[in-house]
């Protein structure tokens, strides 16, 4: 007999990491310059969680996948046109900033409240998926908090693989220090999985899946409720994105050893 899961993936959008980012002072603290005009992508960590969720759902008939996303509605729409081609899921949207300058607790609260509003979600079958970390909110704490708010105490962080047994028990491989894995077994749902990179590659675009998804997801986008992220006591002393440093020098006839040595010296600073 198969196992039915109700998988909720928490995943927001982040500015495309290949773009030039620059923080600026906004009326309520730091913002990303041109955030609304920068192309955005699904947070790569959440992306892994989504593809693992879709794979798990495909292997366990009757399962469903929801993607709960906190982000500006207009940008989410664009990103979802790309993401929805990759895996079947139902989108649930909380409309708010995803610039990375929000408080983790508030973010978790919005996500948890949004999950509570999903019609038809059976929490006894709940697997709460998300990125172990985030490309914008790097604290790695949001998924743990969402899990706590949902009353899910079985939590795994840095997950790379899960295997579901016939009895519904889930074997989880979690990353631990030294490149090793910790193997755990949980009786079954509900559980929280903060995914590392997982094992699945990004699925190819499939316009058919995309079109089916967007028929359901466009209304979700249009009906998105504004997320309240105003109560934060968080303040930023200073903000800066990592700067890439580029020093081009033309040196002719250098040997490979000399080049390697120079790179080592450069890295040592």
């Amino acid at each position, binding site marked *: 007999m198969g196992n039915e899961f109700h998988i909720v993936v928490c995943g927001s959008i982040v500015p495309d990491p*290949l*773009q030039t980012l620059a923080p600026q002072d906004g009326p309520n603290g730091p913002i990303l310059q041109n955030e609304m005009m920068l*192309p955005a992508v699904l947070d790569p960590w959440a992306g892994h969680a989504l593809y693992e969720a879709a794979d798990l759902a495909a292997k366990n008939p009757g399962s469903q996948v929801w993607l709960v996303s906190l982000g500006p509605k207009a940008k989410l729409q*664009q990103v979802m046109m790309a993401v929805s081609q990759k895996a079947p899921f139902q989108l649930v949207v909380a409309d708010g900033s995803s610039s990375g300058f929000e408080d983790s607790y508030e973010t978790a609260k919005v996500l948890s409240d949004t999950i509570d509003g999903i019609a038809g979600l059976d929490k006894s079958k709940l697997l709460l998926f998300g990125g172990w970390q985030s490309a914008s909110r790097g604290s790695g704490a949001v998924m743990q908090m969402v899990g706590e708010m949902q009353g899910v105490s079985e939590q795994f962080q840095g997950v790379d693989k899960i295997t579901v047994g016939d009895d519904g028990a889930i074997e989880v491989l979690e990353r631990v220090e030294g490149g090793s894995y910790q193997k755990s077994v949980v009786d079954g749902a509900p559980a929280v999985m903060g995914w590392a990179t997982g094992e699945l590659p990004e699925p190819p675009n499939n*316009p*058919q899946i995309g079109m089916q998804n967007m028929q359901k997801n466009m209304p979700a986008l249009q009906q998105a409720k504004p997320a309240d992220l105003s109560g934060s006591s968080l303040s930023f002393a200073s903000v800066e994105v990592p700067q890439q440093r580029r020093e*081009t020098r033309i040196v002719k006839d250098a040997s490979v050893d000399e080049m390697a040595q120079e790179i080592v010296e450069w890295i040592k600073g």
Partner: protein
Amino acid sequence: MSDETPRAEMETDIVCVGFGPAAGGFLTTLTRGLMNEDGTPVAESKAMPGMPPQVICYERADDIGFGVSGVVTKGRAIKASFPDLDLSQIPMAHEVTNEKILFLKDPVGASRRPGLFKLADTVLGKWMEDDAYELPYVPAFLEKHPGMIFSIGQLNQWVGGNLMGTGMAQIWPGSPVAEPLMEGEAVKGVRMVDQGVEKDGTPGAGFMPGMDMKAALTVVADGPVGPVGQHLDRELGLPEGNHQREWAVGMKCVVDLPEDCDWEPGTVLHTIGYPEPEIFGFLYVYPGNVASLGIFVPSWFDSPVRTAYRYMQHWMMHPYLWKRLQGGTMRSWGAKSLQESGKRGEPFLCGDGFARIGEGSGSTNVLTGSGVDEAWATGVQLGESVLELLKDGKAFSKENLEATYVAKRRASWVEEEAKVAEKSRDGFTKGVIPGFMGMGLTGLTKGLINMPGKALKPQDRIPTVEEYYKGYIQEGEIQKIRTECAKNGVSLHDALMDRVGWPEIPLDGTLLVSHQDALLMGGKVQANPGYADHVTFADPDFCKGCREKVCIEACSGQAIYTNPEGGTPLFDREKCVHCGACMWNCSKSNPRDNERTNVKFRGGSGGLHSAEN
């Protein structure tokens, strides 16, 4: 039993290929009119009964904002679509405040200037500031004031965001289209590019044949090198007398100007004369001390080693520009080829089940140097026409599209101005001086008087390296340089430019960076795995015997490179910016179709990844 993966098929009402300014104009106009004021649809979808017509647009790039160009335009059509347009709401957009045309003197002595240019260098010298002569006025036909400057990527993001907000059209990025689905001369939709294939197209693990999207109307807006437009041109030919033989590669970058730069936002510079007399330059200053700048290298620049990147660097270092650019930082970089035959290159604008808009439909005005607004206007014309046909319950037949879309286009300013421009560049087929004279004559007489000339195919124009450098470098020495370059696996152009006196570029790692570093700075290339290479050679044996290998020399991203084993050049799509320069610059004709070259540029995934170009 066959184990072939079945090809999926779906139906929609309207499918649009490519999301650029033309598609932006089309979809903006169409989506505004699909619903009546009482909330009922103007027509019922045939693909999804009970719903308004379903409209889907496919875009090859990974995001809808990855257009490559800084633009100065009068913006008449764009303003008409957005009467309350507030440019401050679009990053990198601004009104044109100051427009200049500059004649640039050759400060290094390496430019191949005809006598008249040398004379101008001397005569105008006393009025020059920093080796540049500012023309006393901008001829009316070139003037963009009052107008606007913007980044096409940012405009596309803004337009796309507006469109998706309506919920009336879907725009799918990362969705390359391979070809139209044709039945005779009718188009029945499009076929997407196969996925899960090796570089040569053979099915690999996870093979998924591209889906067929059937539609009552296919809108072809995929630009000058788009696979659907190219396929139609091959199948249908061009209307009698038309040709697509005039091209240019635009190479540009976006630069953070140094803090003390005195260029005001809205400043527009056009330059002529340097680095080579055939090469034009442009510079647009955005708010925030940022500028888009670069050069156009046209097909009449008869060099077989026409590297645009190094020429752009020499142009930036011209004293007039360098004075204000030095200390700046390159933010992103990119290239695009432009179909500059204009109305002469117009294909069949419509047929049963299809219509063509934008640059690929020949809308670019080659006299005024304007294309984005014209492309937008053609999109609007088609949008209005499609709404009329939907309301009247008429089919998207050739006849009905001609009576609506083509008729609107013929009656519009786009057509009127295109006719004026039609012969404006004929003079360039005889040389750069007759070219400039011809443009001036055409512009000042509104097309009444033109310099005559007959356009040749690019591959018939491009001389051998020996011919081009005759009088500059001895044949024997060229052979020596060629052998040396082949041995080191590098292209010829740097060695030849060095040899004829172009100084070395003093790379500074911020603004003057190596071509390879430019590929990594802001405008990175994204090439998704699982797709076939989109650049191939029609007859690889032809390439083995080719001595010019312009595809290597002209490649904007150094994605086509010397094969260390000799023979057919190699291609690395991780560097390809999809500009198409290889296709129109190749010096060999396709053996099966001599109007085309031996380079095949097909539908492919990815491309340049930058939203601010």
